């Protein structure tokens, strides 16, 4: 049994003529510790798929099973506990708490975990240690996203879900962030599922899943995984 099993997942939005199918029978498996990149153009359903995996959206049909447990069988509070104990989230917009310092924002994630990583060590890994007393408004976009990643990773989650984490960043900062995710995956062994529309990033993945019109158009293991530093786009 794979760590993440997604079977015949279907999802539509709207009603009647306005009904729009976003996912029409998606089947994916992801192994523990894999870095999986979900690729696809806008509207292909990749963010919806990520949200359903994260338990913040529901499927119309099919299921997501994580470590042998179907998310659809969980009630609201069980889902919250599931997210609390197993998942870390990183979004395109950093959504940091504006009146907490960098360290405190990261501590918010630590508070949720029974087995958090040491905060200062992680801040050093993230290159934020010198900035730990700053407020988010005093940081650059890249530093803010690193703080957001820190908040998600400090929990030492089983799965780290990243929705276009570099979508709002420039090339160099994006590279820096992706490098960080790569390092986290390697160092802490978390499973990472990252949504991006940047086709070049498939090179850094263990598994590449391409979505088109709500279906998996390709799903393969990347035999020639490259470090981010070597990828150009």
């Amino acid at each position: 049994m794979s760590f993440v099993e997604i079977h015949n997942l279907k999802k539509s939005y709207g009603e009647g003529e306005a009904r729009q199918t976003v996912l029409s029978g998606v089947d994916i498996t992801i192994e523990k510790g894999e870095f999986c990149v979900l690729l696809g153009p806008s509207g292909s359903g990749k963010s919806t798929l990520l949200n359903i995996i994260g338990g913040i959206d529901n499927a119309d049909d099919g299921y997501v099973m994580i470590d042998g447990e179907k998310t659809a069988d969980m009630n609201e509070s069980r889902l919250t506990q599931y997210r609390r104990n197993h998942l870390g989230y990183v979004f395109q917009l950093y959504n940091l708490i504006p009146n907490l310092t960098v360290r405190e924002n990261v501590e918010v994630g630590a508070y949720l975990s029974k087995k958090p990583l040491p905060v200062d060590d992680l801040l050093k890994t993230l290159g934020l240690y010198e900035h730990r007393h700053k407020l988010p408004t005093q940081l650059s976009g890249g530093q803010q996203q690193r703080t957001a990643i820190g908040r998600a990773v400090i929990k030492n989650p089983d799965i780290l879900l990243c929705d276009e984490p570099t979508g709002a960043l420039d090339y160099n900062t994006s590279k820096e962030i992706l490098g960080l995710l790569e390092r986290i995956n390697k160092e802490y062994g978390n499973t990472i599922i990252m949504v991006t529309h940047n086709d070049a990033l498939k090179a850094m993945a263990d598994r590449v899943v391409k979505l088109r019109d709500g279906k998996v158009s390709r799903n393969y293991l990347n035999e020639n995984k490259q470090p981010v530093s070597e990828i150009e786009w």
Partner: protein
Amino acid sequence: MRNPMNRRLPRELKADFGKYLVIFLFLVMVVSVVSGFLVANAGIADAYKRNMRENKLEDGHLSFNVRPDEELLTNLAKHASVTLYRADFFEESDTDGTTFRVYRYNEDVNIPEVTGGRLPQAAGEIAVDNLHAHKEDIKVGDHLTVGGRDLTVVGLLALPNYSALFKDNADLMFEVENFGVGLMSEEGFDAFDSDHVTVSYAWRYSEKPETDKAKQEAADVVLTALRDELVATNTEIIQRALAGETGLTMLEVSDFLPEYENKSIQFAGEDMNGDQGAMEVFLYIVIAVLAFIVAVTTINTLSKEAGVIGTLRASGFTRGEMVRHYMILPLCAFFAGMLVGNVLGYTGLRDFMVSIYREMYSLGKVETFWNADAFVKTTLIPSIIMIVINAAILIWKLRIGPLQFLRREISGRKKKRALRLSRNIPFSWRFRIRILLQNLPNYITMSVGIILAGAIIIFGLMFQPLLKTVAKRIDDTSISRYQYIIKTPEEAGDGAERFAIATLETTHKDYKTDEISVYGIEAGSKFVKTAIPAGQVLLSNGYMDKYNVKKGDTVRLYDKYADKTYEFVVAGEYPYEASLAVFMNRGEFAEMFDKTPDYYSGYFSDRELTELSESNVYMRLDSSVFGSFADQLWKSFADFMGPVKWFGILMFVLMVYLLAKQIIERNQTSISMTKILGFTGGEIGGLYIVSTSLVVVASLLLAVPLVDRLLRLVFKTYLYQRMSGYLPYCVSSDCYWKMILLGIASYAAVVALQLWKIHRIPKSEALKTLE
């Protein structure tokens, strides 16, 4: 690990200090007033009850036109199981309209609490009620002239049967300046020669009835026994007169008043209870409005922090954790306000409230004490209201999933299409309409709050002009300049017109009993100018209004002395505001009340009837008597109404400030962006502040009819049923103008603060968020 989110709280408090300060001040203001009031009220109620409990309060009293035989008194006491105590008094009136009633001291009933000096012992000494003394600046050692005789004031008193100084039980309001009560020793009283001595007896039951019903039944027993004795005595007098004996006077009861109907005894207690109920309702309404205001501000925070909330919820924060987090600060401000409010209530405000009561009621020593009931009412129940309303709204708003928060769809509804606005509407107005639509919940809360504050302001403003109007209407509708009620028929000269009068009681279950004057009017009266149809009656307009009587209705009135109910068919209304009255033809009056056809008991006259012997005049009513009622009523209200008005204004300012501030804060990014685009501060204010101004002005205007309806409802369903007598509902249009102008003037201060706030929003705000 402690929740790191809690570290936000002090910073949040600092950043939004104005909001929490307003919540705090609001609470301090309301709770200090209400807790001070409740603590004072409990102390006053304690003093009031103690004086009645410990000082042998009468269970009722009765008065006669002449002193009855001992046999009558003995029989009455025996048949009614009561002890009768002599409680004679005389009244002297000054030229300035002040009436002074002096009782003969009786150590077995209505024993006064001495609040200063001592009881009178010798002739020429008098002790005076402490409230009247305070109002008239009478001190121990002063000399008073009563009935032309000099008396030395040796003591100040609180009489258990005069906690409220009602001159007459039919009076709508007590009189603290124009009416006073004093006490003389038995010797002093007996030596005092007055034409106006009233033969009076107080009674106390052998077995004290406890319940209201038992009290009524016991009083009925006394009344029945009195009737029987009266019939027996008068039958004997008639027989003796028929036998040729002369100089006999029929015995008549001029007053019969059980304690539970005596306003001088009951009014203070009922007023305190009524005040307390009204205060509590007022507190809970204000707290509920405040809770909604706080909830609206929290919803705005949720809207501002939707992305963060979505992320935290997606990361595993529970809904409960989020609800608690967003409730902590408002509740801290709330509880701090509660605490300070209670401290102030128990200290300065308590003494202030006691002093207000002391201006109205004559009481002995007042001691205030820790009051668990006040704590529950001012702290526990408001806290529950606050927590329940805020928790319910937060749980409701946070019911949506993390995804909706991340997408900023926090209304929980599917995104509607933007309302299409005609291009003919100028851009600036379309902008303002969008602001109105965007902030609809804020504006609705603001509107409700303004209307409530408006009602409080109007309540604080309405009584002074209302009472002036009442005085004017009493004067305008007076039947004659003078009304004389006489004890026995006596001829009067030119210009006087006879009438008959009887006093009956209303029988309406939902209302307090009212005394109704039933007038028998001469055919073709010069004074009552409306013809009264045969077999029917006219009702004074106050009677019609208060009891919702319509033309053609039948009203029932009760004669407690005869135990008889009379029915009257109403032909219409007669404008007469001095009392609640029924007007019928004199012939029909005589027939109905078993009188001889030429029976009369009073005169209408536009001149003073000096020809009537003074000792035969039971009562003389003129415009000064009626006018003083309105003055007195205002005096007893004035101390309360000033603070009520200012409270309403303060509530208005704090609430509008808080909600207007939210609108500016919510649109901070847009305001910053409009600055970047080149709009000036004034232009931005024109867009954002004009929208709020429109709502404020519209709400103030809307408050006029709504407050009118609300207060009319309060009068009709609350006041009229709880008070005897009649106070017309009329709010001077000046009051509404004042409310609107006060509202606009205080809003101007809020606008200044808003402009300053807009000025302070940096242009970088918009760019920061887009980073």
